[in-house]
């Protein structure tokens, strides 16, 4: 684009820079606030004195997390869950979406499958029937209940399909002429070409399964089996509700011990760290992922 070399252009440029920086700060500051809270003394937190910098700096909350076995148990459950979900998603989605890029002349039931996929994305049986199926498969309280119901993310299938469609047909045909069967084409031609988009759907898979709290709420019957986000969610308590419902005065005495806002903030920060760690590596696939879904060349 061209820059007008006038003063008005310079003013405009400064204003644009300021607005963009401001928007960046608006996104960043709330997150800094929670980090500051996690490093502050609980008195300062309860008095709402913490802004962007810790008040009465302490790492007490973090040292308390280290000895919190439930936190690490949930953390571990989520790590395993994310790994298994990712593996399963890729194994199911990549071959499926490759097959779905075939024309009906090559793959007669392509359209039948496609409609099944789309319908599954739009329509569902609801919480209770899905729960009944999961329960009757004996999956309750098992990590598989958090993995299997989301084994085929249809949106990722569509993304991959669109990407495969963009790969030049010639590459594929060369391999077929050499006598490769579709599995070989997929493994040796398509997948190497599709690395960026595989990274993209991996990102979706990891982020989605790390962040999901609801399936833990439904399929896990005890707190000890909760994945990390379900566990974090269960920490938020409604004090007024507790006061209203407390059965005895001794229950009420517990309340003051429960409102550990700095401890909870620290747990939240630790629970976000894994995403922050992979974020820089995967950020560059964002653009391709997002544009693939919406814009087809």
């Amino acid at each position, binding site marked *: 684009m061209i820059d007008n070399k006038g003063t008005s252009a310079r003013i405009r440029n400064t204003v644009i820079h300021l607005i963009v920086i401001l928007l960046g700060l608006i996104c960043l500051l709330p997150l800094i606030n929670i980090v500051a809270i996690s490093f502050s003394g609980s008195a300062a937190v309860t008095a709402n004195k913490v802004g962007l910098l810790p008040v009465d700096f302490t790492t007490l909350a973090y040292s308390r997390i280290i000895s919190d076995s439930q936190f690490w148990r949930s953390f571990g459950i989520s790590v395993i869950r994310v790994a298994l979900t990712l593996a399963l998603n890729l194994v199911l989605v990549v071959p499926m979406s490759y097959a779905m890029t075939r024309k009906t002349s090559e793959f007669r039931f392509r359209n039948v499958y496609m409609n099944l996929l789309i319908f599954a994305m739009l329509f569902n049986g609801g919480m*209770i029937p899905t*729960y*009944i*199926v999961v*329960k*009757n*498969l004996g999956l309750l309280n098992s990590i598989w209940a958090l993995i299997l119901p989301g084994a085929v993310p249809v949106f990722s299938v569509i993304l991959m399909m669109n990407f495969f469609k963009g790969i030049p047909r010639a590459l594929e045909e060369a391999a077929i002429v050499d006598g490769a069967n579709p599995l070989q084409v997929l493994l040796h031609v398509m997948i190497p070409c599709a690395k960026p988009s595989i990274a993209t759907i991996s990102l979706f898979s990891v982020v989605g399964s790390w962040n999901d709290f609801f399936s833990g*709420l*439904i399929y896990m*019957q*005890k*707190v*000890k089996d909760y994945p990390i986000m379900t566990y974090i969610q*269960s*920490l938020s*308590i409604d004090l*007024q*509700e507790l*006061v209203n*419902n407390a*059965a*005895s*005065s*001794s*229950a*009420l*005495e*517990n*309340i*003051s*011990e*429960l409102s550990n806002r700095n401890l909870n903030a620290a747990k939240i920060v630790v629970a976000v760290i894994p995403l922050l760690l992979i974020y820089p590596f995967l950020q560059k696939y964002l653009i391709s992922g997002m544009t693939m879904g919406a814009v087809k060349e």
Partner: protein
Amino acid sequence: MFNRKLKKAAALTLAGIMTLSLWGCGSGSGSTSESSQETVTDPAGRGTVTVTMGRQTTANPKFPSGDSYEDNAYIRMTEEKLNIDIQDEFEAESGDDYNRQVSLALSAGTLPSMMKVASKDELTELYENELIADLTDVYNQYASDYVKAIYDSFDGRALDNVTYDGKIMAIPATASDAGTSMCWVRSDWVESLGLTVDEDGDRCLTLDEVRALAKAFIDGNPEQAEHPVGIAFNASLTGGTSDGTNTINAIAYALGAYPRLWFENAAGELTYGSIEPEMKEALSVIRSWYEEGVVDNQLGTRTWDDITSLLTNGQCGIVFGSWHIPDWLLNNVYTLNDKAVFTPYAVVSEEGKVNCTHANATGEFVVVSADFDHPEIAIEILNLFYDDLVNDSALLEAYPDVASYLNEGVDGTARPFNIEVKSNTYLLDEYGFLKAALAGEGTREEIPTAEERSNYDSIKAYQEGSGDVTGWCKIHSRTKGVDLLTYLTENDLYNWVTPVYPETTDTMNTSWANLQTLEEENFIKIVTGAAPLDEGFESFVSGWKAQGGDTIIAEIKAQLEQ
């Protein structure tokens, strides 16, 4: 061909799962159907029975390390004494979490052998769906005399609540009467201002005395606060229990108004307390106090926390609440100002009586699945925890880790049944022992419960100069709060009213939230003068009736006739 085989296998698996899934929920749990032999009732002779449970938990149970809900001292004792194996089917905190677990278990048609039920509606639903066992015979046969005496202390209100078509369908928890909402007064202020409160020494105040005291506190302003406040209330002015904290209940009750409760009025008609003429009178009193400046001029906008800070800042020296608010609300005042001393007074009616309502005797229950073959185990657990553990000191000697649980204050949710089964008068009974021990007329060892013994220790330590906040709290809640309740009971100063505690009706489901908002908003408007008293109250009553109130009254009447 591989492809074909795969498809066939897939089709078969799928068909299998489908049948399983769809039939599975119809046939209930299959696991218990084997042991349908004759019920053997001797714990040793019946063989180890597996009992699955739905457990209500709390976020901070204070277990010693290594213990959990499924494996703790209480559970181990129960398993050993009764020869059973307790397995938790689900564990969840009270409220939404627990209701969700119950609902999910129910949706799949499989209930745990025993579980807690948190509302009467749910109990009714379980009964109507024939999912829970009839406990009449096992209760009559196995419940100990002590347990039966506890339930009888509620004059039938406890068991009637769980009786359907003459059958006892659940083990009810008990809720003893909460007593009156007290007027807690900063007595150190009274002293420093040289006032006299309660001249006749009957530990009761009239409405005029309350008003005068609040006025004197504002005028005297002993802590030189910037904006002294006479009396502050919650934005929802009234409470549904007699002892409602930060509510106008004490004042309303003194005028014979029983807000948020259903009862039969003088004419024998079922009515809702908040729409009775007495309620208008109560509102008019608060309205005039507000006008006078005795009641907080920011009424309606202050949150619960704001009111607490008024007290801790020394802006306000009068607060209404139950006997136990020193333990969890007033403790904040002492933490910031160790000179603070409170004295509770009851608020009396013109006749010099303290009007009070009986609590809903049972709001929580334990039910036994209809598929479970040993319902007597539920009664045995009941006896073990609410009779033996209370009365049999040998049991604690045999299970020292249970004794240490009691002393360490491990949360009651650790017990297999998270319910309280105590006589209607337990609070006063237990306090009697504490009082005697403190006066030197009894001993610490004679105090029957661990909680009261630890209260004794805290109070003793405080009296010896520890200055500890717990000691201050217990002195206030027990030797002042419960002591006042005891005084009222012993001197026959109570005038008891028995409300009706209905089940949630259809119209309540759809309109109750609206009606509550209508009530709260109108009351605030009337009290703060934003609406005229007479027309304001009349339009509230007619609005309340028209928007579902009348229908609900009719529905409750129909319920009562059943």
